[in-house]
């Protein structure tokens, strides 16, 4: 590890923390429907959309209607994307002449983009047309992100309200999140990326003759706009197969920094929105601090493992950190940092190949996802995810102060615990369940690139990434098979909607509760003690179930490498 590396990590963390408050203030205003400079420009569009859809802006929904609207909207989004993929060969804006996508892959891809996962069993430049990229994938990049933010807003409102029947209006939250939050930032970011050299064109792929005289086709397209929203909305689906490691997606250290900040910005700011809306910003900082502790710990381990390098390679006389699968323009520190950021948030964009990380370096991204991506997390998803852990933590520890546990004046009772456990449970079910079946299916095992524990890690990583709606891949695994297309798709659906529905149920139940005034008997949820408690509960409740699988994957691989054993 180098001082330089740590300074880069520090600068990144500092920017995210500094952005949380102003962006949080802006978002609070957006979702409260306040007038702002952008209203003059976008207000007519917003009202036009409501009129078109027959939505009354002030009509709020109880949690059930909110959830049904969300599910219906996402189902329609899935169908539209699926059809687009299946029919793209016959549709316009297809200069590279891409064919229709086969059913299993289309299912996987449609689910993947609707669930904000962006797992890609296809190579963008070899499979999808410009129309699909723009009208299908990029549109879902916005909408799946806005869906996540909407759920978080419903939950935040629930804690901020007293004895309320409703949690907000899904259609309004969706529209405002897209129009006032995602769109403007994405537009600005697109221009900055173009300025930094990222292509944005509808022209066909360029033909070039290299210095050696070889003929080469260079893939192009509307890259910058998709990169902007894939980071901002923690989608992560690359325009190119190489994702953010591709120089056209991520040309240099500056674009790399902007993209990493974009991944964390909204997730971190949501904690501030929460603090503002419940009337005590410290409550939000406490949650961000808990995320921060887990984040820095992850970065330290990952960076240390990558910087230490591979002893088997050292034995061959090549010193230094592990550079396999990394871009030289980013180096060890920024690759490790990016890997932790992209998996802590449910982004899944990669600027280095996680498959080539050291065993422990690759374990950190996996743990981040297994914990449910609550370390900042996917936009919205990370926030409602960590609140589920907060509920579990408050319930267990809150009892220890001798009262019925309460969080922000809301009593945490059987219903909240039930829903939180349901959501917490669905992750190990999808991650461990599918992995357990896949590792004994010869056809599924055949897709792995490596034998031994590393092959195991490839499968485990795939289902973990899918269920956590991350979308990053451990490389190695060839996922475009019938089995993986279907099962990974199912894992993504479980990890998304089996968390969203319980989270909204909690919102409904919490909103209806009275708020108990704070007293000396309520334990403070804005201090270091609470931060430590949350971290402990996330690691123990969220992480312990995965210890056996980690032992059989990265841990044993690491120990074997240290001992000089290969598979």
């Amino acid at each position, binding site marked *: 590890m180098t001082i330089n590396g740590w300074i880069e990590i520090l600068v990144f963390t500092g920017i995210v923390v500094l952005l949380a408050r102003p962006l949080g203030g802006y978002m609070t205003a957006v979702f409260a429907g306040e007038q702002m400079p952008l209203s003059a420009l976008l207000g007519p569009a917003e009202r036009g959309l409501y009129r078109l859809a027959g939505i009354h802006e002030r009509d709020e929904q109880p949690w059930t209607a909110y959830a049904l609207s969300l599910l219906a909207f996402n189902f329609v989004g899935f169908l539209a994307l699926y059809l687009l993929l299946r029919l793209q060969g016959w549709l316009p804006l297809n200069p590279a002449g891409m064919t229709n996508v086969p059913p299993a892959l289309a299912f996987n891809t449609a689910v993947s983009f609707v669930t904000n996962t962006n797992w890609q069993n296809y190579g963008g430049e070899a499979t999808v047309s410009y129309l699909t990229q723009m009208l299908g994938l990029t549109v879902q990049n916005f909408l799946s992100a806005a869906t996540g933010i909407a759920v978080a807003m419903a939950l935040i409102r629930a804690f901020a309200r*007293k004895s309320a029947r409703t949690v907000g209006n899904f259609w309004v939250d969706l529209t405002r999140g897209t129009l006032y939050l995602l769109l403007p930032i994405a537009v600005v970011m697109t221009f900055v990326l173009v300025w930094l050299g990222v292509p944005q064109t509808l022209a066909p792929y360029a033909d070039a003759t290299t210095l050696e005289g070889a003929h080469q086709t260079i893939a192009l397209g509307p890259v910058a706009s998709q990169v902007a929203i894939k980071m901002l909305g923690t989608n992560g689906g690359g325009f190119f197969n190489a994702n953010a490691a591709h120089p056209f997606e991520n040309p240099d250290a500056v674009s790399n920094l902007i993209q990493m900040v974009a991944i964390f910005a909204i997730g971190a700011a949501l904690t501030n929105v929460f603090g503002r809306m419940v009337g005590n910003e410290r409550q939000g900082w406490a949650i961000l601090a808990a995320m921060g502790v887990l984040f820095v710990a992850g970065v330290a381990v990952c960076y240390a493992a990558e910087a230490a390098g591979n002893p088997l390679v050292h034995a061959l006389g090549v010193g230094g950190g592990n550079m396999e699968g990394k871009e030289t323009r980013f180096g060890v520190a920024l690759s490790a940092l990016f890997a932790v950021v992209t998996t802590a948030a449910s982004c899944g964009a990669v600027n280095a190949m996680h498959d080539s990380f050291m065993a422990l370096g690759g374990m950190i991204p996996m743990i981040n996802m297994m914990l449910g991506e609550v370390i900042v997390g996917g936009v919205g998803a990370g926030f409602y995810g960590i609140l589920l852990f907060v509920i579990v933590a408050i*319930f*267990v*520890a*809150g*009892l*220890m*102060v*001798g*009262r*019925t546990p309460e969080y922000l*004046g809301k009593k*945490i*009772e*059987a219903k*909240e*615990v*039930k829903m939180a*456990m*349901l959501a*917490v*449970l669905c992750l*190990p079910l999808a991650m*461990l*369940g599918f*992995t*357990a079946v896949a*590792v*004994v299916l010869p056809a599924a*095992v055949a897709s792995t690139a490596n034998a*031994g*524990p590393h092959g*195991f890690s490839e499968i485990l990583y795939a289902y973990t990434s899918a269920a956590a709606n991350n979308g990053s891949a451990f490389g190695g695994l060839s996922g475009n098979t019938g089995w993986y297309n279907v099962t990974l798709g199912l894992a993504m659906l479980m990890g998304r909607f089996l968390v969203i529905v319980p989270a909204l149920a909690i919102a409904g139940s919490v909103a209806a509760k*009275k*708020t*108990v*005034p704070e*007293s*000396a*008997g*309520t*334990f403070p949820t804005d*201090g270091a*003690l609470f931060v430590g*408690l949350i971290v402990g509960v996330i690691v*123990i*409740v969220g992480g*312990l*179930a*995965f*210890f*056996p699988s980690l*032992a*059989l994957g990265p*841990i*044993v691989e690491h*120990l*074997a490498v240290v*001992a000089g*054993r290969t598979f």
Partner: protein
Amino acid sequence: MKSRSASLLDARILVPAIGGAVRKLDPRSLIHNPVMFVVAVVTLLTTVLLAKDAFTGGGQLGFSFQIVVWLWVTLLFANFAEAVAEGRGKAQADALRRTRTETEAKLVAGDGYRTVPGHSLKIGDVVLVEAGDIIPSDGEVIEGVASVNEAAITGESAPVIRESGGDRSAVTGGTEVLSDWVRVRITAAAGSTFIDRMIALVEGAERQKTPNEIALNILLAGMTLVFVLATVSIPSFVSYAGGGVPVVVLVALFVTLIPTTIGALLSAIGIAGMDRLVRFNVLAMSGRAVEAAGDVDTLLLDKTGTITLGNRQAAEFRPVRGVEARELADAAQLASLADETPEGRSIVVLAKEKYGIRGRDMESLHARFIPFTAQTRMSGIDHDGVAIRKGAVDAVLRTIAAGRADAAVREAQAIADEVAKSGGTPLAVARDGRVLGVVHLKDIVKGGIRERFAELRRMGIRTVMITGDNPMTAAAIAAEAGVDDFLAEATPEDKLRLIRAEQAKGKLVAMCGDGTNDAPALAQSDVGVAMNTGTVAAREAGNMVDLDSDPTKLIEIVEIGKQLLMTRGALTTFSIANDVAKYFAIIPAMFLAFYPELGALNVMRLATPESAILSAIIFNALIIVALIPLALRGVRYRPVGAGALLSRNLLIYGLGGIVVPFVGIKAIDLAVTALGLA
């Protein structure tokens, strides 16, 4: 019931509990506890597999046998914990049952009565109970006065007075009339009397899971499912790695990971909480009420008897100008000699203490005592032609002022106002139509009560004093006692309004009361403690009954409620934190055969894979027994504020929960190896 054995581990309870532990293996009883039910299922499974292996000659029989034995032991220990807790309740129930002997009742019919069996009485029947009779069932005195021995329910042998009308009209079946007679209207049918309900409560027969217990059970069931997933996925992971894991080892891992510690002790904690209340001579009508007690935000306390001693006492003689204090004391003492009220007696005592004025014989004074009446609001004495009067200031002064309103009267009035402002009650004393001065009667705030209120404040509980006094007096006493707020000149409607207002703010309110007019407020409050001496209506309205009729006990009740919740939280935290060490014991042992590198995870350096697994499962079983005393006694509550309390408990049960099993499992491993068990 005061003479209950308080010892935690009494052989009379422990021995029958062993039998109870075996009986509780009945699936119908186990199903109520999801965690232990799952343990029972997997234990049965491994037992069957062991039997199969024994016939077919499978490998490692000795090791599997030991694991299976410890699995059964784990189950039995859990049952034992519950049986011990129940046994303590049963012992009390038996004591109560002995008082419930079959009685004969004198059913009033026309002018006379006929004798019928006690159990045939119906609600509304009127019975005659005379000296020496046992009151056949719960009821209300409608005629007569009698002294009653209620030792059967309160443990207090001093008889109490029960009379018709007023707030002391309730009688309890099974208690004995010592003197006189009463007519009682029966208010409870056979089998549902107060004592019957007490028996059912302390026995735990009517125990229903409280809301909080239900929520905790859901959490534990959820954790169990998480670990089901963690364990059932292992065989396929292992087969990928080219190895295998025996079912018995998987079961051992599973049972040690799921929260068996809290699962085993959960019902014992609940039963013990009720039991602790009973030891305080408080009966909770439901577990829900005990839990609510822990959550109380506002405590409504009656001034008289709770905050102040029941009676006012003379504190000072304040003469008007031109009168010696001793002269005033002498007159006041004479006027009070025949006054048997506590106030009157306290004047005699003060006169003796301060001025050495001795008691005098009424006979030799040839005195005539003038008793207090509601009309005159004065009492006094006429002797040797001298008339002394003492009483309410306005009443005494009016008799004088009718003659002349002189300086002395005005001065007395001023003194009286001053006394009232300081929270005292003034009594004017006059001799032969001349005012001598004022006796200052003071409400005596109970010793140590101020500290108790400070303690409550640190717990986050607000105390409100309820009094019939005027606001001025109430404010002075409130300040002296250190309560947070007061409700002066309170009517029952005011009380009810105050409770509703607090509840609308989301607060939980506790109060105690005894009179019929307290009943609506008792019913409205979240924790309503009725005094045992109170009326039937009050006892029906509250959700707890204090057999000692001591309103101060509300504070202890709150503490017991908090203790109950804390104990649950502490043991849950401990149970979950234990998993870290158990993983480090079992995971390397499980996979060592095909991944020898994982030996590095064996941080405890346990001797062999078998001893590691065995040690973990033994630790898991023994920790249940080791924690039974804590579950029954409860985690100690300290009024230090929630933050400090949480950090302390997190340190002990969270961090301790991580560290203790590392030490415990290592120690057991050393023992297992030394004994050659594995």
